[in-house]
């Protein structure tokens, strides 16, 4: 029996709308949203779906919208499938999987007209919630699972896998792919594997038996993901730190940065453990070529990094807004003493504690000028996990080349969501740029070493490391010092050093990653953006072009700004700056530092805490163009 929109006995049958309404053959182009309760294990099921789509060769993105809570509050997962590769958040949901009674009403309201809603019809659904333009697909998930699983824990967990099975049937997910994924995950744990297989089958079979599967929008195998991997930015960041040769890390847990260090620690345990064949009995048979300090706070975390950088290790910390605020004083110290340090800021929604599980790009201005006094820092803005990997390596090179803190401004969307990105590559010829570090040989050859003397063309002076040679000894200090490193309160000697710091910052511009620029014939305006906004903005540009508004595109990737940034703005009478904050922080930085004429810049600001959608960008640009 094919039961489309089946509901529990006694309920009205949902109106079934002709396939034509949804559009026949909408293959590999739709969005679904899954509403759950957090702490109930739904994340596993949701990423199973997402990963299976990816393995089918279909471009896909998954966005986890979770609360700042451990158990019991609403959480959502959004999957966007788009053959053209537009993977920004879509706010049009073709299918809603509504597994949270608390949010039924809101979730049902969000389904696109003509879309579908899958719910657990083990319990009756309040008829008032029904919508005429939405197809309700009831699956008695709880009942199916209670019948087959005994422990309550298993029942809760397997219900998730069961809805994944139903979704698989509805979307035509390849069963082999799913089977393979389960096998990989639980291969060695037979009981668990069987339970998962069973639950998946329960959902799948119920759907095929009761609904006309697949739905009008569904999947077909493709090859668009063959050279891609699925990775979240925090894992990629950790991987970058590993490959860059970071040996010391200091950190303090904070959402959404925590998984940077979790991953770094796992990676190190895997790749940085060196066997010690000569270990005496009782001694550990290996040693760890890294040291991670879980610090007592963010001040300590950065202190550890600065100390390690001074002593010659590549060191980094990762944090989010509140932690960065606490790091202000020490960032100024590292700037003025010229000690390399890498700080990853996985941005979340502020101000203050704000929304810790929501995304913003709202630490830009603070990061650029962090600390009192005249300070300017180097910033890198990765746009996806692939760039997190790349930019971490660049960050260490820049920090040591320019002897200064480098902040990598990632965000929650990049950091904690899985993105489909090209496989990361590594050049084995890479050698870290340690910048100007003098060893005993160089010191011997010179009459006298002075820490802040003898600048190169970048304004960088040579440093030495403790523990190497007495002739290189110097006294690092955050107080006024002259070219020779001596304490000073003299205006001329003081200025000489801070002037060089400014020239060093200017010189760095040419060494930062260039912006990504994409031009179109006959473009009438420019759209500038940063970081995780890229997918939404690129899609928006396509939509605008289709409507006759052609725009060039630039994504900023570093501060100080590369030359191209100013020329792009000069080349456009009007530029929109799209960013995820209320105050137009990137725009401000462009005005101050790239001397962008204020009248040429307009802001597109999305700061509700969710990843941007193309529609939001289009709407704000269109409104301003009309106005």
């Amino acid at each position, binding site marked *: 029996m094919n039961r489309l929109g089946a509901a529990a006995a006694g309920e009205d049958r949902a109106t079934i709308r002709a396939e034509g309404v949804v559009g026949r053959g909408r293959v590999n182009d739709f969005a679904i949203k899954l509403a759950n309760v957090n702490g109930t294990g739904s994340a596993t099921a949701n990423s199973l779906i997402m990963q299976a789509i*990816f*393995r089918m060769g279909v471009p896909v993105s998954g966005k986890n919208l979770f609360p700042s809570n451990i158990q019991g509050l609403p959480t959502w997962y959004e999957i966007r499938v788009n053959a053209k590769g537009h993977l920004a958040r879509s706010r049009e949901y073709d299918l809603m999987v509504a597994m949270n009674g608390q949010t039924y009403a809101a979730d049902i309201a969000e389904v696109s007209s003509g879309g579908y809603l899958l719910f657990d019809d083990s319990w009756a659904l309040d008829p008032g919630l029904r919508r005429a333009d939405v197809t309700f697909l009831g699956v008695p998930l709880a009942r199916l699972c209670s019948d087959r699983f005994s422990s309550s824990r298993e029942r809760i967990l397997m219900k998730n896998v069961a809805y994944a099975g139903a979704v698989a049937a509805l979307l035509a997910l390849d069963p082999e792919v799913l089977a393979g994924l389960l096998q990989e995950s639980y291969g060695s744990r037979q009981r668990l594997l069987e339970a998962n297989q069973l639950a998946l089958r329960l959902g799948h079979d119920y759907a095929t038996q009761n609904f006309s599967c697949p739905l009008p929008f569904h999947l077909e195998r493709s090859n668009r993901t063959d050279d*891609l*991997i*699925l*990775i979240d930015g925090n894992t990629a960041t950790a991987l970058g730190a*590993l*490959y*860059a*040769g970071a*040996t*010391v890390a*200091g950190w303090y847990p904070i959402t959404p940065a925590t998984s940077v260090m979790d991953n770094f620690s796992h990676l190190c345990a895997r*790749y*940085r453990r060196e066997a010690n064949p000569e270990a005496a009995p009782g001694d*550990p048979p290996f040693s*760890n*070529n*890294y*040291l991670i*300090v879980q*610090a*007592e*706070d963010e*001040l*300590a975390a950065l*202190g*550890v*990094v*600065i*100390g*390690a*950088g*001074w*002593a*010659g*290790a590549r*060191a980094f910390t990762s944090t989010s807004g509140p932690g960065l605020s606490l790091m202000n*004083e*020490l960032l100024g110290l590292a700037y003025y*003493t010229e000690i390399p340090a890498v700080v990853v800021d996985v941005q979340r929604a502020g101000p203050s504690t704000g929304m810790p599980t929501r995304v913003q790009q709202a630490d830009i201005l603070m990061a650029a000028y962090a600390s009192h006094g005249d300070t300017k820092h180097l910033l890198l803005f990765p746009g996806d996990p692939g760039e997190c990997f790349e930019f971490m390596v660049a960050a260490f090179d820049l920090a040591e080349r320019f002897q200064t803190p480098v902040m990598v401004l990632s965000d929650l969307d990049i950091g904690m969501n899985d993105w489909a990105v090209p*496989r990361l*590559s*590594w050049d*084995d010829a*890479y*050698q870290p740029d340690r910048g100007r570090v003098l060893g005993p040989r160089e010191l011997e050859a010179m009459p006298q070493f002075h820490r802040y003397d003898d600048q190169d063309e970048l304004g960088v002076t040579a440093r030495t*490391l*403790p*523990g*190497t*040679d*007495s002739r*290189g*000894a*110097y*006294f*690092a200090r955050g*107080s006024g010092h002259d070219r020779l490193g001596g*304490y000073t309160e003299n205006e001329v000697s003081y200025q000489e050093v801070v002037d060089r710091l400014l020239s060093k910052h200017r010189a760095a511009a040419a060494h930062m990653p260039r912006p990504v620029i994409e031009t179109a014939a006959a473009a009438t305006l420019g759209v500038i953006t940063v970081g995780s906004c890229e997918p939404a903005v690129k899609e928006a540009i396509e939509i605008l072009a289709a409507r006759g508004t052609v725009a060039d595109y630039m994504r900023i990737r570093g501060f100080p700004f590369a030359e191209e940034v100013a020329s792009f703005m000069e080349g456009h009478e009007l530029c929109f700056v799209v960013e995820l904050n209320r105050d137009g922080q990137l725009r401000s930085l462009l005005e101050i530092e790239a001397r962008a004429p204020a009248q040429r810049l307009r802001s597109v600001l999305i700061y509700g805490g969710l990843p941007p959608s193309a529609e939001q960008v289009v709407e704000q640009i269109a409104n301003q163009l009309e106005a």
Partner: protein
Amino acid sequence: MPSITKPLIPLLPLARNELGLTMQDYQGGMSTLCAGCGHDSITAALIQAFFELSLPPHMIAKLSGIGCSSKTPAYFASRAHGFNSVHGRMATIATGAGAANRELTLVGVSGDGDSLSIGLGNLAHAIRRNVNMAYLIENNGVYGLTKGQFSASADVGSRSRRGDSNLLQPVDPIMLGLSLGATFLARGFSGDKAQLVPILKAAVAHRGFALVDIISPCVQFNDHEGSTKSYRYMRDHELREIETDFIGQHEEIVGSLARDRATAVTMHDGARVQFRTVPEGYDPKDRGQVEAYLRERTGRGEIVTGLLFLDESQQDMHETALTPPNGLAQLPFSKLCPGSAELESFQDGLR
């Protein structure tokens, strides 16, 4: 001449240590502290300790926060790298420097304001981590550099030069250290170099975090009648209970103390520390007993100096972390980067 002259730190001009270095080789720049400041005496003791320990200057890393006390690393060991950081954070920076290169001899110099006010949390956690370093608190009960406010170590009833009385309980770094599981706790007096030098040597030799609280009168703001950190007060109230003599690994330094009633403790590197324990059966390794003893003496208004507590059995930060014996900063890049092949296979798991 119409400028202020400072007493030069007296040196034994000719003596050479095992490395062939003289005391001069451990000296630093000219002090800019007030004439008579206790901190300068500690500087002199440190120079002597380094000399006697035959430390290679380039392996010393001297660190400090901000304050008069924190200026002192500029006045010793100019052949060593130094780091005058920011107020209260020296412990964290030393932790990082030690993490990067465990072969360094880390010597931190701080003040009571730097360590017990703004830096208290960070100090406590460096103690917990048992970072391998000597951490000196040049304790004068005031903020010298900002002109004489009470610090957290000011005793109840202690009077400021301006005349107000401190009414808050003092933070006693030794009691604090005992409560936090510190592995080396000593107290000295800047005016008692004979006792201080061996304490400092033991602190440097200790495997782990060695906290040395040194009463160091501020002649400018806390050396008047009514102060409990003045030279006068110390001479009257110091209880030089537990004498310390440090015996180096290579060379036996014969102290001026009788060897009877002595407890010898062997440090991890083979060096030995001698305690002269006046109270019968004083055991510097028994935390509870030390605590009780100090509480009782402090209650009587006595200031116990000497090496007060020692636990060489605890692992230091690197031992806990199972790092290699040499500095992480010295590891070649080839040991750190897994290379492209591993990256490929790692990514096979990301599909």
